């Protein structure tokens, strides 16, 4: 992989909404890796907490931090291949922490299957330079918000 993988057009409207809000973001740190690590460390708490409202709060902050690492890289001209790999890798680890506790439930098993697909997509992105990903954490957040959680 020599260039950063391009995002799929399917994610266009979602990316557009984020791009509109991006200039208004305030960054306490210039290093994008700080947000990636913070997001990952926060994800470990998914293993410990099962309260719906705590999970909604944790997941929201995690997703915002995940968005901020890419935004910080673009703002401070630090976009690089390593950054992309870190972002993708940490997203997958964060999903592992999020979906592991619900693996005993039927919907948890579906999430686990889609999680495995996401890892395969990550490898495909590296090989083909086309970024495909299933927004599993975002879907899970919606399920939590609408009280359809599986715990």
């Amino acid at each position: 992989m020599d260039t950063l993988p391009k995002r799929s057009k399917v994610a266009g409207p979602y990316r557009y909404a984020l791009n509109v809000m991006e200039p208004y973001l305030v960054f306490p740190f210039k290093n994008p890796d700080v947000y990636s690590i913070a997001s990952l460390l926060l994800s470990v708490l998914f293993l410990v907490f099962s309260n719906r409202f705590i999970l909604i709060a944790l997941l929201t902050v995690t997703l915002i931090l995940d968005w901020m690492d890419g935004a910080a890289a673009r703002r401070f001209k630090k976009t690089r291949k390593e950054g992309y790999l870190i972002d993708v890798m940490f997203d997958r680890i964060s999903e592992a922490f999020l979906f592991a506790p619900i693996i005993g439930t039927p919907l948890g098993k579906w999430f686990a299957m889609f999680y495995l697909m996401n890892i395969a997509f990550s490898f495909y992105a590296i090989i083909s330079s086309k970024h495909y990903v299933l927004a599993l954490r975002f879907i899970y957040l919606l399920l939590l918000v609408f009280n359809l959680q599986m715990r």
Partner: protein
Amino acid sequence: LPLGITLACKLLIVTCKLLHILDKNNSSIYNQHMSTPAHIISGAYLGVITAHIAPSETNYILIALVSGGILDLDHVYYFIKDWKYYKENGFIGKMHRARSFFHEMIGFFLIGAVMLLLSYYDTKLSLVIGIPYIIHATEDIIMGKSTPFTPFDKTSIQFVPQNMKLKTIVDISVIIIFSFLWILYLNAAK
């Protein structure tokens, strides 16, 4: 409780001594990642808590402890295989060479598949095997040098400087914090 505290203190002293000796000899095998006891103690605790294992379910606890450290077995394979290389060049800054793909994203895929299959049989077993493994791999990724998308991409990633002092501090902190949490957990049974 006193027995737990004594054991935790002894474990901490042994780890400190070991790290000190290895650092003194300048041939630390621990300089690129956290030590195996730190992985075991942290991973197994989170696995046991996530799976809601009671302190009396010792078989699950034992499996979690084994799963927390089993990933380090791949280092042994590389030490034996590349012994000549390590003898000539030393261990410092070269530990990432002693890691197999089980430490990287392929490992996450494999353990995810194992967890999914096991969850149909026994969810608790699936969690006590999977979580300690994931925690171990994550700690190594953060503290060491990794090539996450090997064999498709050989780009290596590093977050923290590879310095022994920092590793020792993190290692000891993890051992202290999780020893305390283990004592609380085991004590809750009484």
